[in-house]
């Protein structure tokens, strides 16, 4: 290779190599962009950060009121391997008792991108979550005094492969989580710690997808960047339940997805009486670190 050609080829090779590794740095499967959902886990490794997520929970079944300020970081180690870490500051107002504040349980996760199928807009991820015992205020806030290990599978499927006769359904997408909690203590202060089966789903209708790939209905930014969605998440005790029942929430909301960050807002509706009463809400500011810092912190650690 002569020198001028080498000079021309080198930058192109750098761009090409960077492009191939950046392909999974965001929630993409083919034409489908999956936003970061607020309640359920995302089915992709990413370089993203939620800062903050502010949650006003519905009134608890015991009459308590809780407000949380949370932050989460997702970081790629390689193009297919990543980790997550998150914690929250809590304000808890028990019914008839003094309020307490402090940090809740620290959560971490190790993730592996199992598959990405571009033509069918399908994506799957293995997740090993760990909630660390004694990492938060146990007595005052009810943070865990035991560590819980939660292996799980997260998935996403866009409906862009539907036939032309169903074109307006193509912007729909479904993401979901399936996991099981294995607590390392069977009970805490006389209360059982059951193994739980956790399942959650997010149903999305992507206006960006409608605009880019189905029909330009005249929406322009910022309205063309809206993604209405409904999320649900439940937890069912598998053993040691002693009268414990399934709990969960239903959360309709909307995400606005920009170039460097997204903003999400959802209402929180308890799915049943043991899940609480009344209506709560949450708002989240979520940054795309791969877009914000493409040549530094937004790259996989293996590429630093």
């Amino acid at each position: 290779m002569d020198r001028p050609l080498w000079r021309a080829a080198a930058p192109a090779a750098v761009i090409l190599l960077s492009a191939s590794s950046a392909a999974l740095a965001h929630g993409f499967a083919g034409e489908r962009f999956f936003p970061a959902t607020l309640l359920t886990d995302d089915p992709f490794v990413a370089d993203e950060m939620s800062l903050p997520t502010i949650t006003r929970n519905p009134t608890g079944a015991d009459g308590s009121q809780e407000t949380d300020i949370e932050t989460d970081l997702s970081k790629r180690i390689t193009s297919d391997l990543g980790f997550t870490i998150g914690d929250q500051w809590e304000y808890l107002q028990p019914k008839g008792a003094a309020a307490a504040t402090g940090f809740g349980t620290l959560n971490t996760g190790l993730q592996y991108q199992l598959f990405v199928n571009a033509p069918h807009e399908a994506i799957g991820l293995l997740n090993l979550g760990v909630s660390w015992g004694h990492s938060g205020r146990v007595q005052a806030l009810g943070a865990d005094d035991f560590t819980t290990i939660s292996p799980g599978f997260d998935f996403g499927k866009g409906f862009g492969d539907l036939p032309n006769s169903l074109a307006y359904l193509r912007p729909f997408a479904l993401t979901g989580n399936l996991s099981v909690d294995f607590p390392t203590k069977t009970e805490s202060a006389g209360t059982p710690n059951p193994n739980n089966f956790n399942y959650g789903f997010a149903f999305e209708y992507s206006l960006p997808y409608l605009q880019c790939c189905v029909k330009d209905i005249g929406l322009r930014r910022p309205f063309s960047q809206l993604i209405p969605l409904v999320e649900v998440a439940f937890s069912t005790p598998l053993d040691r339940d002693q009268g414990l029942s399934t709990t969960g929430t239903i959360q309709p909301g909307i995400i606005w997805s920009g170039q460097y960050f997204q903003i999400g807002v959802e209402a929180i509706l308890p799915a049943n009486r043991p899940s609480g009463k009344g209506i709560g809400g949450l708002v989240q500011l979520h940054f795309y670190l791969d877009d914000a810092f493409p040549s530094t912190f937004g790259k996989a650690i293996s590429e630093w």
Partner: protein
Amino acid sequence: MRTAFAAAVLALAALPASAHAFLDHASPAVGSAIPTAPPALTLWFTQDLELAFSGVTVANAAGQRVDLGNVRIPPGQPAELQVGLKPLPPGTYTVSWHVLSVDTHPTQGTFTFQVGGG
């Protein structure tokens, strides 16, 4: 946490003008029906593009290319991609594009438009 939040906001305030390039709009428009085809297809993206790693094809219902293959970024319009079209008889046409933004993020998409009665 307030310090971390302030630091993050300050860092993000100084962002470069690049990210994933999404299709903003197109001419002919996505999913549109037009009486006659223009001489060129134009795509407008949300970010500046790398021409060497970007492309667009237009095919008829039989899968035959009907674009001229002369993909270009118009001078002074780094977020636009344009390709010439052959004279198009009535029918449905499929546009397939893939682009690389200047900070190396790839995106892709397809859409259709109709000419004449379809």
